């Protein structure tokens, strides 16, 4: 080939087609999707918690997208119905994930609504699930000899707390749990809404 113009044109056209298919068309298609009435915008604390989730890379082990029934039995694991674009109306950035070293979390707030469980589990996952390989997050907590008045003391299973200390949740841990509890897309989706995804 002797002509740079051909090369430039070919490169631009090929990338242009792909951009149209994977960026522009999805944009057009989901632009007008209305948020479901039961889905509430995140609160301030939940948004802060979402940033903690992002900062510590939870997305690299946890997806937020129960799969379609004809592909996998995610619903039978109690992870919820297949998600639809409207479920993500308030998600900036998206946290769909591509890995399930741990379970899907799109409905973790409905599946495990106990804040105490989440706090303790973040402090030491293996106190709850013996064979778990989830990292412990002790840096989201502080240890004190005695709790102060406004401290949120984490109630841990016997033996999980360091001897003679209490484990207190930091603001970050509390925000993160607020966010996890907000993950609840168990409301029904009308067939008309899901048809838009076809």
């Amino acid at each position, binding site marked *: *080939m*002797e002509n*740079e113009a051909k*090369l*430039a044109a*070919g*490169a*631009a*056209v*090929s*990338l242009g*087609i*792909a*951009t149209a*298919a*994977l*960026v522009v068309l*999805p*944009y057009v*298609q989901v632009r007008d999707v209305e948020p479901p009435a039961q889905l509430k915008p995140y609160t301030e604390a939940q948004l802060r918690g979402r940033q903690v989730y992002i*900062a*510590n*890379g939870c997305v*690299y*082990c946890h997806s937020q*997208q129960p799969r379609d029934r004809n*592909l*996998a*039995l995610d619903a*039978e*694991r109690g992870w919820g119905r*297949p*998600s*639809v*674009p409207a*479920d*993500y109306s308030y*998600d*900036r*950035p*998206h946290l*769909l994930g*591509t*890995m*399930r*070293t741990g*379970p899907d979390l799109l409905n973790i707030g409905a599946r495990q609504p106990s804040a105490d469980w989440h706090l303790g589990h973040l402090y030491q*996952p*293996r106190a709850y699930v013996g*064979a*778990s*390989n*989830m*990292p*412990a*997050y*002790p*840096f989201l907590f502080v240890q004190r000899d005695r709790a102060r008045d406004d401290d949120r003391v984490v109630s841990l299973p016997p033996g999980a707390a360091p001897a003679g200390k209490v484990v207190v949740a930091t603001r970050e841990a509390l925000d993160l749990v607020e966010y996890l509890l907000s993950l609840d897309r168990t409301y029904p989706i009308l067939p008309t809404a899901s048809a838009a*995804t*076809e």
Partner: protein
Amino acid sequence: MDSAVASLLAAFVLSILGLFAFIWSLRKGLLVENPRAASVIFARGEIGRADDPALDDGGHDALQAQVTRLEPPPEATDASQLNARIEADRSSAFPVFLFIAFACLWLLVGSLAGVVASIKLHEPDWLVDAAWLTFGRMRTVHLNAVIYGFASNGCLAVIVWLLPRLLRTPLRGASWAMLGGAFINAGVAAGIGAVASGWSDGMEFLEIPWQIDIFIFAGFAMIILPALFTLANRKVDHLYVSVWYFGASLFWIAVLFLVANLPGVHYGVQQATTNWWYGHNALGLWFTPVSIGAIYYFLPKIIGRPIRSYNLSLLGFWTLAFFYPQVGAHHLIGGPVPGWLTTLSIVQSVMMVIPVIAFTINQGGTLWGRMHLARWSPTLRFMMFGGLMYLASSVEGSLEALRSINAVAHFTHFTVAHAHLGMYAFVSMVLFGAVYFMLPRVLAREWPYPRLIDAHFWLASVGILVYVIGLSIGGWLQGLAMLDASRPFLESVTLTMPWLQLRSVAGTAMTIGHFVFVAHVLAMALGFGPQRSGAARFWDPVGRLVHGK
């Protein structure tokens, strides 16, 4: 219209468009082979002469003896063409060394972070007290250091070094390349610091905050300038296939990086499709074309034989350009994205077989009866391994996109193994080989300890094979367990443990190989080690072509 029909129709139309573009670009001499174009990388009289600057005199003579048995005797070489190449090499030496040095730095950072992250997956209570050491951050430091740090710098070194050679003219605007390199590496350093401290944009491959991305984009844009200046001043009529790959990939990565990082435009599901449009294209339209372009240059150059079918390389280029960009959405299979989108990506993933087969036939034909030369040339060994792994990773990728296989492999370590097959066994091995070829020319010195090249090759190649095979098995078992709703989810975690431990062992071996490699580069740059012949001569006064030292 029915969505499945629409998607298939769209995919079909796009594929046909791609093929028409290919035919259109080839309408001159479509059915005639073109050995003249394939020989553009050689100076007159160089065909039949082996060229591996990583070898010492004895090694080179042994390689040449093997080549002499296979090829017709070479003609006398053309001194003026060789001098032009020496000029070209001199003009690019400084920026190329800059890119190689940064690549080495980030390779070590990325490897160490990768090993730490790998160990954490089976030792989850190790190093948990500091936030920056947590798995989610170490993994991200690893990814960004090896992708934007090591591999991107390596690719830029290859491009900046080869463009002047292929265009037979000195590099124009070298200072722009160096300024761009400074911007990119400042951005990578800041980005890695940001990720480690918990400041992240939150999307895979796009974690570096967009404020920092401005620097990286500016860096890429600046590097396009010297490429354009050099192209405008070229002294050859024909643009060798590597030039198209390099030119197109520079344009592609700049546009991809810009569009994907635009703040405030993308959200929700559309952001997820953009994320994987970018994520897969970073591999498919940046690292892959540069590595293929490198193989198309280095492999024939080392063995002194032009590629067999130049037209096949054309077919490979245009089919890659038209099929690869649309494969990304298979990362979202079964997810909340439009069904036609994943179908389109699956169709195009399978179409990717065409450029891969075109490449493989071409390399196979060029190397036919010459595979044994790899025993004499370490650079050729890296290149052949990389080319073979390109075939392996692409065929695996095409199969993996199919619904039935993707259903198992999706969300598992199988995907991680596949990513390393592409980025390491293919791209990184080609880049290592390219550095072994380039650096003696860049620094005008020999590699001081040739045995270290062998050590690096075996640590890297055996390490990555154990890594990929082991983790693929583990990931596949994980996927099967996950699809079986009668087995508790935890089983899909516990059964991967031995495979994750094996991965840590393999990753450690690869990392040791990287330390060997970087120590060798350092020893060479600082002039340590035996000085066999002093400064390299490209050309000795007698008029005999001297291999690089």
